């Protein structure tokens, strides 16, 4: 070994981790090289100092805290305990808390401003209207001054000629809108899923509820 020993060689030499062949080479070199012996001394002093660093004894509370934690973990848990412990674990994570806070804040803002922005209209959210009383013969007679008879899902105006041609139109048809303008209460019946058959301008129309419109 003509060149100086590497730091890696000297380090492994101090730790007695050199392979036999390499060990012999390094030892031979160290016999002749003062410089490498000095470097080795320095490394040995450093390692010796590190190895003599005072070791600490674990505090006694460490064991007792661990015992308590393990006891909490292993005791039989009912549903409430499990939820509690899960919540406890979740609450330890700041990212989860901040995410929940953001979601909550966003929901609150949306709720507060929903009314003023009239979001229901903008988003076409169906609005619940007061529902008419259960359909009865008496009630039907009151609608727009016309009398209707119920035939299953169809409310037929009384007195319509049988066998006459019927024009089926959706509730959004202009003719249907005219009828509904005259008799707004019919909207409730269409909303309830009934089709309404009536005479309008010498034509017999069957206004289909919006879901059933072709």
């Amino acid at each position, binding site marked *: 070994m003509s060149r100086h020993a590497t*730091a*890696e060689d000297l380090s492994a030499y101090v730790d007695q*981790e050199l392979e036999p062949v390499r060990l012999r080479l390094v030892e031979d070199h160290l016999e002749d090289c003062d410089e490498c012996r000095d470097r080795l001394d320095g*490394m040995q*002093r450093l390692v010796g100092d*590190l*190895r003599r660093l005072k070791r*600490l004894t674990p505090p006694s509370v*460490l064991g007792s805290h*661990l015992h308590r934690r393990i006891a909490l973990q292993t005791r039989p848990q009912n549903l409430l305990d499990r939820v509690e412990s899960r919540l406890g674990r979740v609450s330890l994570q700041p990212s989860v808390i901040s995410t929940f806070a953001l979601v909550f804040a966003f929901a609150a803002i949306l709720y507060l401003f929903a009314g003023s922005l009239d979001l229901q209209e903008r988003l076409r959210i169906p609005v619940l209207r007061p529902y008419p009383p259960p359909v009865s013969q008496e009630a039907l007679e009151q609608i727009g001054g016309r009398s209707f008879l119920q035939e299953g899902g169809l409310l037929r105006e009384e007195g319509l000629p049988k066998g006459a041609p019927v024009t089926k139109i959706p509730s959004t048809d202009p003719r249907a809108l005219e009828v509904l303008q005259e008799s707004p209460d019919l909207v409730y019946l269409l909303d309830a899923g009934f089709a309404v058959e009536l005479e309008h301008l010498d034509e017999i129309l069957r206004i289909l509820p919006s879901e059933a419109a072709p």
Partner: protein
Amino acid sequence: MGGEIPTFSLPLERGQMEATISSEAIPESDRDLVQRHRYGDAEAFDEIYQRHAEMIYNLAYRLSGDEDQASDLAQEVFFRAFRHLERFRGRSSLKTWLYRVGLNHCRSRLARRRWFFVPVAEGDPTEGLQLVDRRRDPEARAMAGERDQILHRALAKLPLPFREVVVLCDLEGLTYEEIAEVLGVRIGTVRSRIARARGKLRVLLDTMPQEGLP
């Protein structure tokens, strides 16, 4: 744990002297303890803790630099070990496995902070780190204590990968093979990393102010 050590008396042959075998003479292996833990023996983990608490606590202390932090870290490490001990397959020793759990946990915790606890030295810096024998007289002990502080501060300045190998090799006394197992790297990597870490440590010790040494 603790308590009275059970003894077993062997049946005697005619003319044979009475003999008693203490269970203390046959220490239970770590693998047996793990097996007992799997079968639900609560005392088995206590024994594992007793055997390895000092080792894990000192690892945590040297990596974090603070005793309170080390206590928290060690508690977390043992709690993790308790929960995941069933995953221990026995391919490595329990000691190596615990070191791996400890190191991974310390890495993840210490990565979140950029600071390191360093004891504040008192007095005036006058001399470099010249090694002195740890004699029993108070002056030598005081110097040794101050040198410990200097080494501790130098360790704190080492980048974590280098600090890890120095702690495992020089302070915990692991072989290169064991360190390779703990870190999950090849022995060659361990060898070069230790050499580089010692080189860096030497440079740090030579350049940093030696507060506290007389």
